[in-house]
């Protein structure tokens, strides 16, 4: 494991070294800019203009409000005690009443037993939602809607517990055991089960991965949309011609994606910091267990996902001349994002990752959604995680080169619509 990490670090250092050497050779060939140069200027303009936009400020506040709600509401809900209202029709002796109350306690709630005048009145109150269930003569339970075995609400669990425990209590009564014997039987604890492997409590991590997925989805959709529209606007307003008179196309594009990317991560950092602080303050379990690790992985994949998709959307933006064309282009480009988001959300909610889902975690278009979920479910090793990240980086480099070539050809094209053949012809130049 450590060897893998060291290997990756060495590879990154070597790659950076080679890149800086190459840049050095290029710089000596002609007059050059300072370190940040034109890319920094372009990025800086993007940052200034985006931060100045009211839609950005308002959007950030909305996301913070949603995050706050996601952290606070479950905490408030869990802290509130709503006694389960139980209607009692006919006689129900003390031991059976105690059994109902014990059932409620076993699932972390309380029961309030109300004597109903008759069955009809009880059914009416049940239908009105004033009662969770009705115990009729101690022999049957009535509920308003069927309780499916898969239903996980507190009321459903309570109904199942009362149904089971009441039957046991009546059986104990029928066996004519002494109160002490009946009590001993009623309060038995399950035999403990010990596992050779450490336990996997995914609850908090799953919840965090769901929040992370929503964050990644919103960020990728919003910021790639900005790139798409921004590139199109520069082309349609012809300001691109003035810019390209001073800056190379690929450097202009790089500055643009870096600037918007910086804004994206600044916003993500604010949201995550806000979530961490708020969760700590209110004592939310959203960040307990392995949840912080999931959060870090989510941020890493937000970065990798943005790096991959930004080039795709930039190239597409250079093909558009008008706002209507942007809409047409945005949908097919967003499909892998929507697909990855939905399938990851499903896996995170169910707690199960299929083989197909695991494959998606290694494909660059869907990995930003699938990989953090696999981490949350503890279904991936660090080697797998790093392999997927490496694949994504390689794909991003390829995509950047392709997008640069497409952008250069498309952005300068005037007249008739550019055909695919024209787009890729002489793209190396």
């Amino acid at each position, binding site marked *: 494991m450590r060897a893998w990490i060291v290997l990756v670090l060495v590879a990154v250092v070597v790659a950076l070294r080679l890149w800086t050497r190459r840049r050095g050779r290029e710089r000596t060939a002609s007059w050059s800019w300072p370190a940040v140069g034109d890319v920094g200027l372009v990025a800086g303009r993007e940052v200034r203009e985006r931060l100045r936009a009211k839609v950005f400020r308002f959007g950030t506040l909305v996301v913070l409000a949603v995050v706050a709600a996601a952290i606070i509401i479950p905490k408030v809900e869990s802290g509130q005690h709503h006694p389960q209202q139980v209607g009692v029709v006919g006689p129900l002796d003390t031991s059976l009443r105690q059994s109902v109350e014990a059932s409620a306690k076993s699932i972390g709630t309380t029961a309030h037993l109300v004597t109903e005048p008759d069955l009809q009145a009880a059914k009416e109150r049940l239908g009105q939602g004033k009662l969770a269930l009705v115990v009729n003569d101690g022999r049957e339970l009535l509920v308003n809607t069927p309780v499916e075995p898969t239903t996980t609400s507190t009321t459903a669990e309570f109904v199942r517990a009362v149904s089971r425990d009441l039957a046991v209590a009546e059986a104990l009564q029928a066996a004519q055991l002494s109160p002490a014997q009946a009590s001993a039987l009623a309060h038995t604890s399950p035999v403990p089960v010990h596992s050779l492997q450490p336990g996997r409590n995914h609850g908090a991590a799953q919840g965090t991965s769901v929040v992370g997925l929503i964050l990644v989805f919103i960020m990728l959709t919003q910021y790639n949309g900005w790139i798409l529209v921004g590139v199109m606007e520069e082309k349609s307003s*012809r300001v691109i011609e003035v810019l390209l008179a001073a800056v190379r196309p690929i450097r202009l594009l790089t500055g643009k994606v870096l600037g918007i990317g910086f804004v994206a991560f600044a916003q993500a950092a604010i949201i995550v910091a806000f979530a961490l602080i708020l969760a700590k303050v209110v004592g939310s379990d959203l960040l307990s267990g392995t949840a912080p690790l999931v959060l870090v992985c989510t941020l890493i994949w937000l970065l990798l996902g943005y790096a991959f998709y930004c080039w795709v959307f930039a190239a597409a933006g250079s093909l558009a001349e008008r706002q209507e064309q942007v809409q047409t282009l945005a949908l097919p480009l967003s499909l892998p994002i929507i697909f990855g988001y939905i399938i990851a959300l499903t896996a995170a909610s169910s707690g199960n990752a299929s083989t197909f889902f695991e494959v998606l975690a290694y494909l660059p278009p869907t990995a930003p959604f699938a990989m953090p979920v696999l981490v949350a479910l503890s279904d991936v090793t660090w080697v797998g995680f790093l392999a997927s990240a490496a694949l994504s980086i390689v794909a991003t480099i390829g995509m950047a080169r392709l997008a640069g070539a497409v952008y250069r050809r498309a952005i300068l094209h005037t007249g008739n619509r550019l055909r695919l053949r024209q787009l890729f012809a002489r793209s190396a130049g």
Partner: protein
Amino acid sequence: MDALLEFEGLRCHFGSVVALDGLTFTVPSGQVVGFLGPNGAGKTTTMRSVFGLTDLDAGSVRWGGKPIDQAARRRFGYMPEERGLYPGMLVGEQLEYLGQLHGMNRTDARAAARTWLDRLGIADKVGVKVETLSHGNQQRVQLVAALIHGAELLVLDEPLAGLDPPGIDAISGVLSEQASAGCCVLFSSHQLDQVEELCESVTIIDHGRLVAAGTVDDLADSGPRRLVVRVEGDRDASWARHLPGVTASEVVGGEARLVLDAGIDSDAILRAAMAAGRVSEFTFERRRLSEVFREAVA
């Protein structure tokens, strides 16, 4: 030696349309050179080629004898035909940004932007968004964007289009001033009267080929001699209709513009006119630029 902009053997096509067909010409420094041609002649394609915005099939563009690279381009100023500015950005910030992209530091770019805006009479627009400006003022801002970094070469595609007379005067004044300071100025226009007034020399292209080039004086003096003759009482200049080697190119209100073939004696024309009546006007005339243009692209 002053730098020279050279276009040599430019060829370019868009699908089946030949935009440039072996175009070759030069633009000297210290002059305002008018770049003329009918619509679709290839002017914009040629001007874009200076900035690498045209994929040429063949040919080269050189500045000071060397192929143009990105470092050289940063010292040029460009005003595209379709105006290019960020509509939602403030005028001052936009000019500062473009100046920095051309290698200026922030302070110098800010100072230069204010100086030029003041020079063109729109200093009060520094803090407003470009999209709120009138067409003429947007044009002025666009010109400042080309001038701000003290360009060695100005390539301006239709800088006078859509401007009112004060706007034309302001921009013309700036271009003359720049040329006097040693800048190389190439600009295209369809307003031939303004070009004649402003330019020392012109280059005329048609169908992607050079059809005429030279100083305005040389072009006006070149070609067959031209006479303007008025004979009182002869409003349709019928006396000149049958003179050998003479063509009446225009007759307006008794004033005849005559084009003389080579070797035709002007004294013989004068005698023929005097025989037809009292001659109230008899002058040699230079060709106007509009006539040079029409003949060149005919």
